[in-house]
């Protein structure tokens, strides 16, 4: 009897966990299925590379794709060094109960929950108007960086904290300087966490509309510099789906490109991290 009970308990738990995981996967596959079903037949080489026409109902998304990459580039170019620096400060240069550290951590946790439209209005006021950058890819990228930083810093900080202290002590006992310890021991160990932070941050950035519509703007011309206004893929999808009568087919096709771009970026960033790790570990 008791053996049977145990068997029931074990198979019951397994079943519940399987059901939970399956239920989580279902929306993703429904969404992808819907995108593929409605978008795939509008997808072509010229759609990806040509300029939009007739408010996006015709033509392609070439300039919008380029603008999106520029915006993401600015965002990550600013967020990565600042995020890494702050995470190192919080994890390696201050104690966990250190007052400035706690203040920074607390403010980051609040920032992480701020709605993106607030970041959009903030970015419009600070970057577009006070700094005089106007509607530009630079304004949009900097606004996104502000939005991504909290997630990035907190994930990276936690992955530094998860490294056992013995590793730091062993490095110190071997006479390694702190920068060398960080570069050769802590960084490779924290790399998976860093990667998660980057992927989560990029995911938030690439899907953003509200923070960008008032900062990088609505112009769908090919950008010539970071000072040009440039429409992102997500803003384009929003406009086609919500504002342009008859824009749905191209909204689906653009969404398909957006998801593919996310896959490519995630894949290549994990490959880059793997390469970096193989170069920077101390010889055994």
């Amino acid at each position, binding site marked *: 009897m008791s053996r049977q009970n145990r068997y029931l308990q074990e198979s019951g738990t397994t079943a519940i966990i399987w059901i939970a995981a399956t239920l989580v996967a279902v929306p993703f596959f429904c969404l992808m299925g819907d995108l593929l079903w409605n978008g795939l037949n509008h997808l072509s080489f010229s759609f990806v590379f040509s300029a939009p026409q*007739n408010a996006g109902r015709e033509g392609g998304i070439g300039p919008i794709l380029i603008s999106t990459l520029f915006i993401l580039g600015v965002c990550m170019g*600013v967020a990565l060094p*600042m995020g890494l620096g702050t995470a190192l400060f919080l994890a390696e240069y201050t104690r966990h109960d250190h007052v400035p550290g706690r203040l920074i951590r607390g403010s980051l946790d609040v920032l992480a929950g701020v709605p993106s439209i607030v970041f959009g209005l903030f970015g419009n006021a600070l970057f577009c108007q006070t700094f005089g950058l106007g509607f530009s890819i630079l304004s949009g990228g900097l606004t996104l960086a502000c939005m991504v930083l909290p997630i990035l810093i907190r994930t990276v900080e936690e992955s530094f904290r998860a490294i056992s202290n013995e590793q730091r002590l062993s490095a110190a006992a071997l006479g390694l300087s702190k920068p060398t310890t960080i570069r050769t021991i802590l960084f490779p160990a924290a790399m998976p966490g860093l990667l998660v932070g980057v992927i989560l941050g990029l995911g938030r950035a690439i899907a953003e509309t509200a923070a960008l519509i008032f900062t990088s703007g609505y*112009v769908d011309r090919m950008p010539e510099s970071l000072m040009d206004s440039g429409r992102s893929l997500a803003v384009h999808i929003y406009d086609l789906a919500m504002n342009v009568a008859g824009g749905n087919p191209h909204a689906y096709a653009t969404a398909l490109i957006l998801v593919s771009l996310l896959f490519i970026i995630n894949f290549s960033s994990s490959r880059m991290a793997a390469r970096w790790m193989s170069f920077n570990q101390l010889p055994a």
Partner: protein
Amino acid sequence: MAVSLLATIGVIALCTICSLDASLAQAEGHKLVITGSSTMAPLVAEIGKRFETGHPGVRIDVQTGGSSRGIADVINGVADIGMASRALKSQEQHLHGSVIAQDGITIILHRSNPIRELTDDQIRAIYTGGVTHWNQVGGPDAPITVVNKAEGRSTLELFLDYFQVSNRDIHPHVVIGDNEQGIKTVAGNPHAIGYVSIGTAQYDATHGIPIRLLPLQHIPATIETVREGTFPLSRPLTLVTKSPPAGLIKTFIDFARSSQVNDLILKQYFLPLQG
């Protein structure tokens, strides 16, 4: 801390350099920033592209955000031209509005429905649930299918504003987004009532789609009555400037009001000023 401080200084320095760069670019005066109504933004962006091809070196940057934002941006000097998909209000008379096109909204029924006209009160009662069957307003004995616009559509706002009802009081059977979707819904349901942009509806009705455009206050829903300004449920698409248009701004507004952009206006389902 030192690292992030350095990075912050770096970003601020970068911003300063770029802001110098930006002010230089704007000093050339070959760029127009236009912000406002999301309804107008796709149309004005298309007009801007055609204007750019005829004026090399000029750039028209169109930003969206809503009519009231367009008006605020013009007042603050953030934008050269604002877009408002409505007439200027009485407290905005110090601004200068130039109408570039008209937009109208019509009530549509299925063509097999014998009803030829509904009063404003009857339409209000149908949408707020006071009238649920066509025989209550002189039609066949059949339940009414109420087709409403989705939240966030300017057509919905104009409809609510004209009939003085709140969207919370409307209990629609079908909620639609685009004009085309509304027309297909009504065309496929003999007992439906909906409302869409006049341009699209008139085009479809004359191209064999079984819908009928109802008059409002006895005024027929046609492109002509909207153009004359007699059709009650219509609005002007307006370009707004702080001072009387001059220079490049005037050239652009004149271009947007000319017959050279009629095809662009029609393609966005609005009504051009000239036939």
